[in-house]
C-alpha cells in the first residue's frame, strides 16, 4: 500500500463563462422566433398605412377566392391523414411484430421515401401519371387503345391526395413502429397465458397500446399535408385550384398583397397550434405503455403461409412512393424525352451535360444549397445542443421558457415563417432579404424543434451524475461537457446534424417566398424548372440532390470523435 494521503494541489479558481453564454443563446432564440411572428401579427391586423384593422380577415372569410382554398386544404389534409394511417398501421405492425421476411429492407425503403423531397415525388408522379404523357397512361393505352381516356390524372384533387400521402405516411409509420418496438413483450405474454390466441392478443392488447401513437401520427400527417407547398403547387395549379399555401404564395406575386398574405397565414398557424395541443394531450396519456423497467423483447407473430403475401403487400405499397417514382426519374434523366421509355439505343447523357454545363443557375443553386445545408446543420446542432443541455440540466432560471421557444417553430408552417421573415428582414434595422442569411434564419428556425427534441432525448439518457462525477473531481463545467457529455452524445449529435442537412435539402415552402435570383437553392430551381416544363433537368437535379445527401451523411458519420464506440457501451448507469 503506497497510496499517498497528501491532498493534491488545490485547483486554481477559474471564471465561469457559462451563464453569459447561455443568456446570449436565449436572446438569439427570441430574435429568431418572436421577431418574424410579431411582424406577421402586425401586418395581419393593419392596413397599408399600418392602421389597425380587421379588414384583412373580413376579405379572407367572405371572398370565395380564399374560402375555396381553405376548404380544399381541409379536404386534402383530412383524407391524406386517413390514408396514411390505413397504410402505415399494417405496414409498421408487419415490420415490427411479425416474422415477415425482409423486415429491415422494408424499414430502409420507408426511410428512403422519408428522405425524398415531396416536391420531387410530385414531379416524378407527373412523369408517371400526367393525363397525356404519363408513362402509366401510355402503358394503359397500349392495352386500351390509342384514344382511350387517361387512366390516371395526377392534376386533380385525388392525385394531390395520393402524392401527399405517399410522402407523409412515413411520419405515421415511424411513430407507430417505434411504439410497437418498445412495447414490452410481457404485456402480450400476459394475454397469451390467460388464453388469448395471437389474433385476440393483437386485437385486445397490441393495437389499443399502439393507438395513441397512431392518432399522434395522424395529427402530424394532417399538419404536413396542410402546410406542404411543393406538391400542391406542382399539381393543383395546373388543375386550376389553390390550397392555402399556394394562395399565400400567389399573394406574394406582383402586385404583392402582404397584409392579406399575413392574414391568410394566421388560420394555418392557429390550426397547427390547436392540433399540436391535441397531440400533446394524447401523448401525455401514453405513459401507460412504458411502465416499469426490465421487459423481455416482444415475441413475433408467426405468419406461416402469409409471410410472403405480407411482403408482397409491403412492396406493393412501396411501389408508389419509392419504386415507380425513382424509375420514372432515372428514365427521364437518361432519355431524350422525359416521358418516353428509354432503351439502350436511345439512352443519352445529354440531360446531365445540359444541367451541369448549360443551365446557368445549377452551379449557383448547388453551391447555395451545400453552403446553407452545412451552415444550418452546424449552427442548428450547436444551438439545439446548448438549449437541450440547459433544459435537461436546468442550468439557468427560465430554462423552461427556453425549451418552449425552441419547440415553438413546430407550430409555424414553413410558408408562414417565410412570410414572417420576409416582413421582418426587408426593412431596417435588419435588411437581410436577398442574402443567404435570411434563408439560413428560415432553415434554422424550421429545423430547430426536431433537432432540439432529438438532442433533449439524447441528453435524457445521460445520467446527470456522470457530469457531476467529473465536476467533483475537478473539471469545470466546460471540461465536463467536452470530456464526458460530448463523447456520450456523439451518435445523437451526428444524427441531428444529418437530419437538419436533409431538412434543408428538401425545404421549399419557406424558400419559395424568400429567394432572389442570387440566392436560389436546389429546391427552388427544381420548382422553377417544373414551371418551364423541363422535367428531364429536374430528374437529373433530383438524383444529384439525393446523391449529395447520401454522400454528406456518409462523410459525417466518418468524422472521428473521441469515444466513438460510446453508444455500444452505454450499458451501465
Amino acid at each position, binding site marked *: *500500500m*503506497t*497510496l*499517498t*494521503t*497528501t*491532498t*493534491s*494541489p*488545490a*485547483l486554481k*479558481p477559474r471564471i*465561469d463563462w457559462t451563464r453569459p453564454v447561455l443568456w446570449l443563446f436565449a436572446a438569439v432564440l427570441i430574435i429568431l422566433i418572436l421577431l418574424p411572428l410579431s411582424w406577421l401579427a402586425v401586418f395581419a391586423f393593419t392596413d397599408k398605412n399600418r392602421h389597425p384593422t380587421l379588414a384583412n380577415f373580413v376579405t379572407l372569410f367572405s371572398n370565395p377566392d380564399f374560402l375555396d382554398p381553405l376548404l380544399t386544404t381541409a379536404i386534402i389534409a383530412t383524407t391524406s391523414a386517413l390514408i396514411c394511417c390505413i397504410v402505415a398501421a399494417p405496414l409498421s405492425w408487419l415490420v415490427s411484430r411479425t416474422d415477415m421476411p425482409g423486415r429491415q429492407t422494408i424499414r430502409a425503403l420507408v426511410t428512403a421515401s422519408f428522405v425524398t423531397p415531396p416536391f420531387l415525388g410530385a414531379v416524378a408522379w407527373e412523369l408517371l401519371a400526367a393525363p397525356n404523357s404519363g408513362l402509366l397512361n401510355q402503358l394503359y393505352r397500349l392495352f386500351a387503345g390509342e384514344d382511350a381516356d387517361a387512366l390516371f390524372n395526377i392534376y386533380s384533387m385525388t392525385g394531390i391526395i395520393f402524392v401527399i400521402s405517399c410522402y407523409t405516411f412515413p411520419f405515421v409509420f415511424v411513430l407507430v413502429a417505434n411504439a410497437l418496438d418498445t412495447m414490452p413483450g410481457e404485456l402480450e405474454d400476459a394475454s397469451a397465458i390467460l388464453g388469448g390466441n395471437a389474433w385476440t392478443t393483437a386485437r385486445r392488447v397490441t393495437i389499443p397500446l399502439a393507438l395513441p401513437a397512431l392518432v399522434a401520427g395522424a395529427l402530424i400527417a394532417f399538419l404536413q399535408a396542410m402546410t406542404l407547398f411543393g406538391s400542391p403547387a406542382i399539381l393543383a395549379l395546373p388543375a386550376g385550384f389553390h390550397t392555402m399555401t399556394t394562395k399565400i404564395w400567389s399573394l406574394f406575386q406582383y402586385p404583392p398583397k402582404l397584409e392579406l398574405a399575413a392574414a391568410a397565414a394566421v388560420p394555418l398557424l392557429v390550426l397547427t397550434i390547436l392540433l399540436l395541443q391535441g397531440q400533446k394531450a394524447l401523448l401525455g396519456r401514453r405513459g401507460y405503455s412504458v411502465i416499469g423497467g426490465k421487459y423481455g423483447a416482444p415475441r413475433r407473430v408467426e405468419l406461416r403461409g402469409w409471410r410472403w403475401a405480407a411482403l408482397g403487400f409491403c412492396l406493393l405499397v412501396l411501389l408508389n412512393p419509392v419504386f415507380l417514382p425513382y424509375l420514372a426519374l432515372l428514365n427521364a434523366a437518361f432519355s431524350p424525352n422525359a416521358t418516353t421509355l428509354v432503351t439502350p439505343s436511345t439512352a443519352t447523357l445529354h440531360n446531365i451535360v445540359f444541367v451541369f454545363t448549360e443551365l446557368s443557375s445549377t452551379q449557383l443553386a448547388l453551391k447555395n444549397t451545400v453552403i446553407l445545408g452545412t451552415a444550418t446543420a452546424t449552427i442548428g446542432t450547436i444551438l439545439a445542443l446548448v438549449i437541450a443541455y440547459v433544459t435537461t440540466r436546468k442550468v439557468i432560471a427560465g430554462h423552461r421558457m427556453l425549451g418552449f421557444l425552441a419547440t415553438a417553430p413546430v407550430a409555424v408552417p414553413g410558408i408562414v415563417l417565410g412570410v414572417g421573415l420576409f416582413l421582418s428582414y426587408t426593412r431596417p434595422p435588419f435588411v437581410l432579404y436577398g442574402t443567404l442569411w435570411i434563408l439560413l434564419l428560415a432553415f434554422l428556425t424550421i429545423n430547430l424543434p426536431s433537432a432540439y427534441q432529438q438532442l433533449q432525448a439524447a441528453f435524457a439518457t445521460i*445520467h446527470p*451524475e*456522470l457530469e*457531476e*462525477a*467529473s*465536476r*467533483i*473531481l*475537478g*473539471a*469545470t*463545467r466546460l*471540461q465536463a461537457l467536452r*470530456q*464526458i457529455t460530448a*463523447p*456520450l452524445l456523439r451518435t445523437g449529435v451526428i444524427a441531428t446534424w444529418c437530419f437538419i442537412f436533409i431538412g434543408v435539402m428538401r425545404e421549399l415552402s419557406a424558400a419559395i417566398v424568400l429567394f432572389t435570383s442570387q440566392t436560389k437553392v436546389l429546391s427552388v430551381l427544381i420548382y422553377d424548372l417544373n414551371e418551364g416544363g423541363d422535367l428531364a433537368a429536374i430528374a437529373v437535379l433530383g438524383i444529384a440532390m439525393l446523391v449529395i445527401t447520401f454522400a454528406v451523411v456518409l462523410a459525417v458519420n466518418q468524422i472521428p470523435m*473521441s*469515444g466513438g*464506440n*460510446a453508444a455500444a*457501451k*452505454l*450499458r*451501465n*448507469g
Partner: protein
Amino acid sequence: MASVELRGLVKRFGSFVAVDAVSLTIDHGQLVCLLGPSGCGKTTTLRLIAGFLEPSDGEIRVGDRVVSSKARTLPPEQRNMSMIFQSYALWPHMTVAENIVYGLRLRKMDRDTIAKKLAAILATTRLEPLAQRYPGELSGGQQQRVALARALIVGPETLLLDEPLSNLDANLREEMRFEIRRLHDEYRYTTVYVTHDQSEAMTTADLIAVMNAGKIDQLGSPEDIYARPESEFVARFIGAANVLKGTARDATHVEFAGAVLAVVGARLTAGQSAAVAIRQHEIQLSTRPPATAHNTLKAIVTRQVYLGMNRDTMVEAADGTTLRVTTPTAIAVEKGREVWLTLPPERCRALSR
C-alpha cells in the same frame, strides 16, 4: 485536511423547504452519516456540501474558508472533494483505468506519478485484472469498487457518499460496508455518508445525524441514537421501537393504560402528555401475573408469528394501543389470551419530542 461545518443551512425549492436550518460540525477525519427516510433532505444536504446546489441561506465552511453561502458558492471542481454517487456514475466511454485516473489528469500530474498511483489503488481495490475493461462489462460490486477507487485516488479533503450501496445485493452490501469503513480508517478523510439504511449507518459511522423533514432530529454516536432516542421519530425509525403515549404523573412516572410506569430519559412535567419508547425485545411477556406489579401492563394477544429464532407477538393494551413484543419461541400464546407485560424501568425512555 479540514473539518466541514454547516451553519444554519437552508435550501428551498420554490415554497418547499428541503433543508431547514441544518447546523452540523464534522471534525477532520470523522465519518458522519446522514440517516433518514427518503425525502428527508439528506441528499440535498450532501449536494449542497458538494456545491451542486446553492444554499438559500446559511453557509458551509471547509476548514476556515467559506465554500457556500447565499452570496457566493464555490463550484464543485474547486472544493477538493470526491463523491461516490448512487448510480456510481462511471463513464461508459472510458475504461476502468481511464475512469480512475481522470481526476489525476485534471490535476496535470505527470505520467509516472499517475501510473504509480493507479497501480496502488488498483491493488487496494482488487481491480488489477479489470483495468482495461469498460464499466458496462463489470458486475455491480466491481463497478462500486471502481467508483470508490476513482474517488479516493485524488486524495480528497472530503469524501461524500450518496447511498453508495443501495444498488448492491445483500451479501455484497455487507462486505462493502466494512470495506468503506476500513478505507476510511486507513486514509482518515472527512466523510459524509448519506443512507436510509440504519444498519449501514450503525456499522460505518462515527456520528449519525438522523434527519426528518429537512431538519436534524438527533445527532449522536450509533449507540446514543439506538439506546437513547430523544424523539418519537428517531425511536420509531431506528430499530422500530414501541411508543406508548400517556400522561406524566411526575418527573419520572407515566400513567399509561391504567398502569404507572417508571421511566428514564427526558424529565417530565406532571399532568402533561408524555411519550415513552421501548424496544420489542426489551418487553417481557408472561401468561401469569408477575411477582411484582411494578411497571407491568395487562394486554390481549392479537397476533403471533413464529420467526425461527423467536416469535413476533402483537398485543393490545387496555387503551387500544398495539405493541409488538419479541418473545422466545418457548412462549407460544394463542390469539385472544390475556398476558402480562413487564417493561423494565431502565428500558422505558421518556421522549422529549
